[in-house]
């Protein structure tokens, strides 16, 4: 795309994660490849169960080791290390210090029996050499950075004494206190109400600019993606199906699923009055019952013979230079009239 983009700091290649379950070994994500560039926000979008969380947790190796398996071909290249297969010791030096993560439910993600100060202190003690008072100072700094009122008092409070928005700020403070190069945000605003959501998103944006941290934002909410992401990766049923800049995805979606997603956003206005809300018919295929061909074929309005039998590869196509996993991606140049005014 743009030649000025610096080299990616995280390169995920052919990531395949499977789980041992009572029903056998199920593959949750297959052949996922993602690049994260410094200072950029990458949005990973998809409906529940498409594998976005699994992808992020695989990068951080946070999945339960007893039941999860990363395939041998999986590569997660970060500063020369292959995170997919490196030692736990190496992983520990990366987690929190160089790649940090925040989660969806701030109430349950914070330890209820330790104070905010203790939890911030812990993160700092693992990855910095600061003294006790140094860590306290830095904790207060971080809380101020995330726009927390009365940071000194907050340090001695417990998570349950804070509101949802404040807890998420604490999570962000904890994640960023060691100045990581990448922040993975797994549905950070889903559990918050809309007004707080906007604040948190703006906060993350500001911090990204201040600290030049790359962000991987995982969400099912297209509105959030539109607001903060620079690049987008669309996932469906465990696979990446389309990649591009946020403009490209929203203005000229090429995969039928992406387009259907965008179309299903309810619109207001007199023209829409009386129309049914558009939906995508059918359901996501179960992991142990995947079709041989394209995983979206059953629900796709323009599916053809080949779609049902052979799974498409993720590759660039003739009329664009971004990857799409589709045999017959929508050529926007031929459908200008229809796509104008959308997204």
């Amino acid at each position, binding site marked *: 795309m743009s030649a000025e983009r610096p080299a990616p700091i995280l390169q995920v290649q052919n990531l395949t994660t499977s789980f041992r379950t009572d029903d056998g070994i199920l593959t949750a994500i297959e052949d996922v490849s993602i690049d994260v560039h410094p200072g950029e926000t990458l949005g990973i979008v998809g409906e529940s169960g498409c594998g976005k969380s699994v992808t992020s947790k695989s990068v*951080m190796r*946070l999945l339960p080791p*007893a039941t999860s398996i990363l395939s041998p071909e999986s590569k997660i290249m970060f500063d020369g290390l292959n995170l997919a297969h490196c030692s*736990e010791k190496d992983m*520990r*030096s*990366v*987690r*929190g*210090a160089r790649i*940090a*993560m925040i*989660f969806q*439910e701030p109430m*349950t*993600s*914070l*330890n*209820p*029996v*330790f104070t905010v100060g203790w939890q911030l202190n*812990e*993160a700092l003690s*693992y*990855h910095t050499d600061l003294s006790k008072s140094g860590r306290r100072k830095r904790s207060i700094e971080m809380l101020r950075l995330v726009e927390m009122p009365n940071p000194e008092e907050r340090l001695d409070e*417990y998570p*349950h*004494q804070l509101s949802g928005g404040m807890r998420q700020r604490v*999570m962000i403070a*904890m994640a960023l206190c060691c100045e990581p190069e990448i922040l993975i945000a797994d549905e950070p605003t889903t559990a918050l109400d809309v007004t707080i959501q906007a604040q948190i998103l703006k906060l993350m944006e500001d911090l990204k600019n201040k600290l030049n941290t790359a962000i991987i934002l995982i969400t099912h909410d297209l509105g959030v993606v539109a607001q903060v992401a620079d690049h987008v990766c669309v996932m469906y049923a465990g696979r990446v199906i389309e990649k591009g800049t946020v403009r490209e995805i929203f203005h000229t979606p090429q995969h039928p699923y992406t387009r259907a997603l965008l179309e299903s956003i309810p619109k207001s206005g007199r023209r829409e009055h009386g129309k049914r809300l558009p939906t995508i018919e059918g359901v996501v295929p179960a992991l142990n019952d995947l079709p041989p061909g394209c995983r979206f074929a059953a629900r796709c309005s323009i599916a053809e013979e080949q779609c049902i039998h052979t799974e498409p590869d993720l590759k660039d196509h003739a009329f664009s230079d971004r990857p799409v996993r589709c045999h017959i991606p929508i050529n926007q140049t031929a459908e200008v009239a229809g796509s104008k005014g959308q997204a």
Partner: protein
Amino acid sequence: MWNYIVRRLLYNIPVYLGIILILMALLRFGAADPAYTFLGKNADPGDLEKIRHQLGLDKPFFVQYVQFLWEVLTLNFEQESWGRPGRTVGEMLSTAYIPTLLITVPGLMITATISICVGLISAFNRGRLADRTLMVLAVVGMSVSFLVYIIVGQYYGAFQLKEWVGTEIFAIEGFDLEENGFIAGWLTYCALPVIISVIVAMGYDTRFYRAVMVEESSKDYMVTAKAKGAGRRKVMFVHMLKNAMIPIITRVMTTLPFLIVGSVLLEYYFNIPGMGNRLLGAIFDKDFPVIQAFTAIFAVVFILSNILTDVLYALVDPRVRLQ
């Protein structure tokens, strides 16, 4: 927090009143009259009357209730025991509670410590050989009757041990703390019963503590801790343990009453003159005042441990402590 504690205290009061009510009703109504049971079928009606009057059984129930309640609250039991005339119930109580405490309190502390450690080892190694072995042992241990442990324990622990070693390490039965000093006496007479009660309780407790710990381990904050770069040990022993201690501590307190129950059997078999043994003796003698008073005291201990549990819970869980 105080709000919570006061509420719990107030709540337990009607419970205790209820216990005494049920206890007294149980002992008086329904089947045979207590005096009758004690003196036998061919008792002289005069004697019957005398003994009933002595205990106040001829007064209306409500009066008896209040009277007894007062006795319990002031710990002042003045009736004479029927089985051992000349000794008041209060006297018997004051000598009997010490041996019971000497068995139950150490038992509680040792069981709790060992079970928590074993549960932790199991949870830490979840699914691996160590865990599975320990849990199988726990289930096996749970499936054998308490009595078998007592009988076999007494035989091998006291009797056979003496044969092998030559001198008596654990007494087969009895209780005497004067002879060789307190600690030696305790080791001789109380250590074996305590060991037996620990072995019996461990099966149940370890499984429960392990379950608590495993459940805590799957909570979200554990993932966060790991994401921050914490090592496995730190995550387990600091993050998980502090949270798990909340239900564990409350559970430790609630095992106290079961240990008291267990002490009844141990005292009986090892001939230790504690409260359980006395109560049992009273039941066999059909000694009404003792039965009533001792049961009421056991119930007091239960209630107190309930209250203590609630208080501990309030202190340990910051979500309750700071409201």
